């Protein structure tokens, strides 16, 4: 524990599969609604019903044929963020404070880096399943232009999830009380959800706000997802998006290991 290596041993990560399987078996029913049904409510309300009143051309919707086609990739990306965040806020605090699970785990051959890696792999699983289902369902609405783009977008969702998971994991491992979560949900997650280009082109914002929006990870994720599924990939920009999300994921991961190690070290 004293020598922090952020790199896990994958053997040790694998040994935690039974734990996470048991957790999933116990919780999947509770998360099924938020994971699989809520996104469709958004699509229905925003895309179909609200979209019916929005009459604007391709130019204003970044090349999307309809508002539904515009908003769908945005909703998927935002859903990746929310799913990932949900799995590393209260759950991480619970495993430290309420259930002390991490203390039990790190008394075995598992090291902090292994424990963090396994938890993040569970996040990958959760984001992949819930965003995967979302993408499949949306494809029936005929809003996607490219099959290959959708496939790549699927992996992009995992990357978006990871870019939030590491950072928020680190934050949760540092927090002493759950009151801190309300702060990030109100000041970060909700504003990101609303203003990162999921619902309207960020060009509609005033210049300074547009710049601010473009600095957020969610915008990079939304824009990347949208260009992929609408088959309008801008190569260099896509690379910038990917690089941004990869760097953020890596830094977040490292921070998570560092903070949890500090927290568990007694």
């Amino acid at each position: 524990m004293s020598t922090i290596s952020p790199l896990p041993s994958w053997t040790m990560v694998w040994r935690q599969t039974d734990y996470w399987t048991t957790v999933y078996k116990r919780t999947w029913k509770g998360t099924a609604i938020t994971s699989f049904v809520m996104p469709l409510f958004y699509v229905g309300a925003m895309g179909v019903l609200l979209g019916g009143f929005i009459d604007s051309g391709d130019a204003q919707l970044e090349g999307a044929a309809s508002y539904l086609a515009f908003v769908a990739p945005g909703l998927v990306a935002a859903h990746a963020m929310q799913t990932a965040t949900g799995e590393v806020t209260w759950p991480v605090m619970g495993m430290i404070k309420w259930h002390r699970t991490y203390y039990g785990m790190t008394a075995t051959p598992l090291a902090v880096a292994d424990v963090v890696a396994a938890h993040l792999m569970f996040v990958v699983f959760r984001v992949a399943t819930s965003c995967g289902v979302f993408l499949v369902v949306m494809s029936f609405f005929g809003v996607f232009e490219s099959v290959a783009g959708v496939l790549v977008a699927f992996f992009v969702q995992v990357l978006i999830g990871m870019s939030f998971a590491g950072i928020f994991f680190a934050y949760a491992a540092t927090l002493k009380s759950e009151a801190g979560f309300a702060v990030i949900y109100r000041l970060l997650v909700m504003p990101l959800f609303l203003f990162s280009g999921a619902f309207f082109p960020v060009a509609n914002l005033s210049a300074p706000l547009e710049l601010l929006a473009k600095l957020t990870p969610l915008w990079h994720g939304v824009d990347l997802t949208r260009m992929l599924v609408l088959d309008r990939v801008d190569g260099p920009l896509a690379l910038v998006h990917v690089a941004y999300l990869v760097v953020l994921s890596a830094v977040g991961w490292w921070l998570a290991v560092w903070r949890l190690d500090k927290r568990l070290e007694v």
Partner: protein
Amino acid sequence: MIRATGLRKKYGDLEAVRGIDVEVRPGESFGFLGPNGAGKSSTMRMIAAVSPPSGGELSILGMDPAVDGPSIRARIGVCPQEDTLDNELNVRDNLVVYGRYFGIPKAEVSSRADELLAFVQLTDKAKAKVEDLSGGMKRRLTIARSLVNNPDLLLLDEPTTGLDPQARHLLWDRLFRLKQQGVTLVLTTHYMDEAEQLCDRLVVMDGGLIVAEGSPLSLIQQHSTREVAELRFGVGEHESLATKVEDLAERVEVLPDRLLLYTSDGEATLAKVHERGLDPVAVLVRRSTLEDVFLRLTGRTLVD
């Protein structure tokens, strides 16, 4: 098995362990005694390779915990003072999932879990939620869990706190058997009968230091007299009466509810007390125990 020299643990400004030397040999059962806050758990956590020492040398199973933490932890069993059971998993899953962390194959861990449940008499609770167990049952489950990897070295921090007498005796019996199989035991306890029963050797800690070391018997011989006469007077009288019997014993301890007269011959001392016209409400002559050693060394009773 364990060799510590000048071992220290600091939490910020507070030094909980202030340089202790301990050596535990293979197959031995070794105890840490000491009042609350003495630094027992801090020491145990360092030995369990979860808490890095702030100073001194520490070697466990011939390895350095700072370098070989995972390999050390693979071969030890830990029952921490505070339970770290997973409240959200059921009783049996707690054992199975934990066993998997050690890389034990599924089929093996499954039969091992059943064995261990039987051992701590929780078989009928296998499917129960941990949340619904009583405190003592949780403790038993934690002990069972610490055995899941067949450890060479078992660390038990107050294993029997909260257990009923029947469960304690059951555990003692099982620990004896483990010892016979060659498992090295290290435990902390606030129960002197437990220490006397289980420990070949023990140390008494106070304020982060070791104040005495030896076998239970040798500690009693070194730090106490052969017998003790306990005198009980009316409430509040003990302090003032102590001066009247001071010269009758090698040492007199005043407890809130009784006087302890340390002497080689309890009955003779008692006779002299009566000669002085003192009339205790109740008397008891007994042999010295570890409790007396503890009282002498730390000024406190074991369970305070």
